[in-house]
């Protein structure tokens, strides 16, 4: 099964350190939330994990030969000159799954519209659909629910939660919302500001999803840790 | 003679570097023949013949060397009021020749049928028209149809003949002379073709061309130039000692080449300029007009347009 080992000592960009020592593992089927202040290096870490950048002191290693990834970038990164549907197909989406996800995420009516003509929230939902439609062996999600209204946010979270139940793949979820982290993840990694160090690697207690009080308490604890 | 030069009227001649006109001008200047006749020759170098023609039209020079067909065509095309009042006095009576490689099986014009013939200049070049008329009359073949023609720039064609990519080449005489020195055989000179066409006398081929208006306004200068030029040619004909100093102007690869160039040059010097030549040229024009058609002569018919030749001077 797919596993990830991250053991970074330092990552520099344009001559400045943007990541300090960060080590953690991601087991098969495990969902890990990544939390940290803006600019601390979360997106940079995700690029390293995705293998899009290899210049780093330390190791970032996937078991096996590197899984097929489903990635949600922080910006939608769609091909504006292709339709919504084509953006899914070109990424290697499964046809039926793509249709289902467009439907679920309220984009079915836009299937044949140029991606350039979507609103930002639609583009972000499409980016999420793309990551979930490609039969990924691991998910890397950079704020997948940002810029969505409450209704669509709830919907998108539900879609991801169902997905993870059906296909428990290792998932790295960058989020600013601790409640979201607690609701979806098995573990929460809290990063420090500046060149990010790993502050805490905190397991989410098993009962949170059924016990709102426990969830609230966990969020409070995490908020304290993150401060 | 510096004072003489200062007092002299300048005469601007457009020439080609390494062109034969420069030889004559060089002799004139070296012997002070221009100042002796009250003018100061200024030669302006250009890279191609076309460039000299552009320069003449643009008023940059007073005269250039070009063939009289060019004059006739412009006069015919533009009519009497057209402004192209170019007129001509002769510089050389030779045009060129058909050259074949040393061991070529081609012995007569008729043998050219079905062979690859290179033609310097375009399809309206005088030599080509003369050759076609001559072949039609003498051998009964239409070279235009019977040969595999290649028109092109003379240096490229000379190279192609040397490389065996052509069987024969109709080219300008400086290239013919060089070929001759390199062992090529002259199949037929254009001058022979002209007389073969039954044209009495020797029509000129290339000459100095200038504007009629300019000539009328600068009669003394023109006459002085003609006189100087004839003196220079006489020197070049009679005096062997003139030639060594022309060597750097000729860019001859070898002595043999230089000698060939000298001989062709001398052969072309027009000994006379008068009614006999004008009539010969008029008859030649009819022949060319018949072959070249309206593309060559415009709508003017086969009569040489009046004023093509500068008749006020003759020798």
């Amino acid at each position, binding site marked *: 099964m797919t596993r990830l080992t991250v053991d970074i000592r330092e990552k520099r960009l344009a001559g400045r350190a943007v990541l300090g020592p960060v080590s953690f593992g991601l087991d098969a089927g495990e969902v890990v939330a990544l939390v940290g202040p803006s600019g601390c290096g979360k997106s940079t870490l995700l690029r390293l994990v995705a293998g899009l950048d290899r210049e780093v002191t330390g190791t970032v290693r996937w078991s096996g030969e590197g899984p097929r990834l489903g990635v949600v970038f922080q910006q939608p990164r769609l091909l504006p000159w*292709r339709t919504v549907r084509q953006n899914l197909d070109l990424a*290697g989406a499964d046809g039926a799954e793509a249709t289902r996800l467009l439907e679920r995420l309220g984009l079915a009516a836009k299937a044949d519209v140029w991606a350039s003509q979507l609103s930002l929230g639609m583009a972000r939902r499409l980016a999420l659909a793309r990551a979930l439609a490609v039969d990924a062996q691991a998910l890397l999600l950079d704020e997948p629910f940002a810029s969505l209204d409450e209704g669509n946010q709830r919907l998108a979270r539900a879609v991801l939660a169902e997905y993870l139940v059906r296909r428990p793949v290792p998932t790295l979820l960058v989020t600013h919302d601790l409640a979201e982290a607690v609701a979806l993840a098995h573990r929460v990694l809290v990063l420090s500001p500046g060149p990010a160090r790993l502050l805490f690697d905190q397991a989410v207690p098993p009962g949170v999803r059924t016990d709102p009080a426990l969830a609230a308490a966990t969020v409070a604890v995490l908020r304290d840790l993150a401060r | 003679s510096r004072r003489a030069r200062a007092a002299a009227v300048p005469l601007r001649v457009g020439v080609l570097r390494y062109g034969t006109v420069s030889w004559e001008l060089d002799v004139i200047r070296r012997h002070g023949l221009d100042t002796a006749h009250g003018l100061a020759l200024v030669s302006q170098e250009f890279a191609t013949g076309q460039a000299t023609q552009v320069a003449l039209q643009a008023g940059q020079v007073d005269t250039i060397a070009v063939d009289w067909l060019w004059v006739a065509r412009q006069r015919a*095309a533009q009519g009497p009021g057209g402004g192209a009042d170019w007129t001509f006095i002769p510089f050389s009576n030779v045009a060129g020749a058909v050259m074949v490689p040393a061991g070529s099986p081609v012995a007569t014009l008729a043998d050219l049928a079905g062979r690859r013939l290179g033609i310097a200049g375009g399809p309206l070049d005088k030599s080509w028209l003369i050759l076609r008329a001559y072949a039609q009359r003498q051998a009964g073949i239409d070279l235009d149809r019977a040969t595999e023609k290649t028109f092109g720039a003379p240096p490229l064609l000379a190279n192609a003949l040397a490389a065996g990519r052509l069987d024969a080449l109709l080219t300008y005489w400086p290239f013919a002379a060089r070929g001759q020195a390199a062992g090529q055989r002259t199949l037929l000179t254009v001058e022979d073709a002209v007389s073969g066409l039954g044209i009495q006398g020797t029509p000129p081929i290339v000459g100095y061309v200038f504007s009629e208006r300019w000539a009328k306004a600068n009669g003394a200068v023109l006459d002085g130039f003609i006189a100087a030029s004839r003196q220079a040619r006489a020197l070049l004909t009679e005096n062997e000692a003139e030639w060594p100093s022309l060597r750097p102007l000729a860019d001859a690869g070898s002595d043999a080449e230089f000698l060939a160039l000298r001989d062709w040059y001398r052969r072309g010097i027009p000994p006379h300029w008068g009614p006999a030549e004008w009539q010969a040229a008029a008859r030649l024009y009819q022949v060319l007009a018949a072959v070249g058609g309206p593309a060559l002569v415009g709508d003017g018919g086969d009569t040489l347009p009046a004023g093509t030749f500068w008749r006020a001077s003759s020798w």
Partner: protein
Amino acid sequence: MVGRGRAWLVRALSILVLLLLWEGAGRLAASPLAPPASTVLATLAREVVSGALPHHVGITLARVAASFLLAMVAGTALGLAMGWWRTVDLWLDSALLLLLNLPALVLIVLLYVWFGLTEAAAIAAVALNKLPTTAVTVREGVRALDRDLLEMGRAFRFGRAATLRHVVLPQLQPYLFAATRSGLALIWKIVLVVELLGRSDGVGFQIQVYFQLFDVAHILAYSLAFILIIQIIEWAVFQPLERWATRWKAS
């Protein structure tokens, strides 16, 4: 935005104004060296009727088409490779610059001398002249590609062909159109030189002949014939193609 109908009206008017200006200037000049539009158009008509112009223009067009295709395909490929891989760029940069700046005349003459005055040499000479400018343009386009989209393509394993077709080419579109427009013009101009130096037919050959006679009306008539054809290609092919390629931007 200007409506489609009005756009064509303006286009037609602009050509009319051009012709009128030309006509007026020509009449004012009253010189055979500056013939008015009407004279040139009459000459053009006569040459069309005689069949000479269609013959020569056809031959030139064929040469232009062959060289254009060659140069665009090879130039685009080279530009892509040099923009994409820095090592390729370092190795070939000087050679590209050499080819780019080797005078057309020199290249043509050398190819004619080495390979004879053949059609193949002519077309190769023209294509080699245009190729480096296409490569230079496309290379700039590749260097300006959006890195975020390329990363997206890598993350989702688009593969080389799909990346090229769906990520890279749409971004190169303006560069390719620039290369196409100026390329067609450049190629036609070089074809003229090639024909002038060593071919026995084509527009360049004809222009050379009329140049020797200094017949400006004919020279302009032949030039104009070709320009008209390019104008038609522009309207019938390039502009619709460009609209099609950018239709996702419309509105």
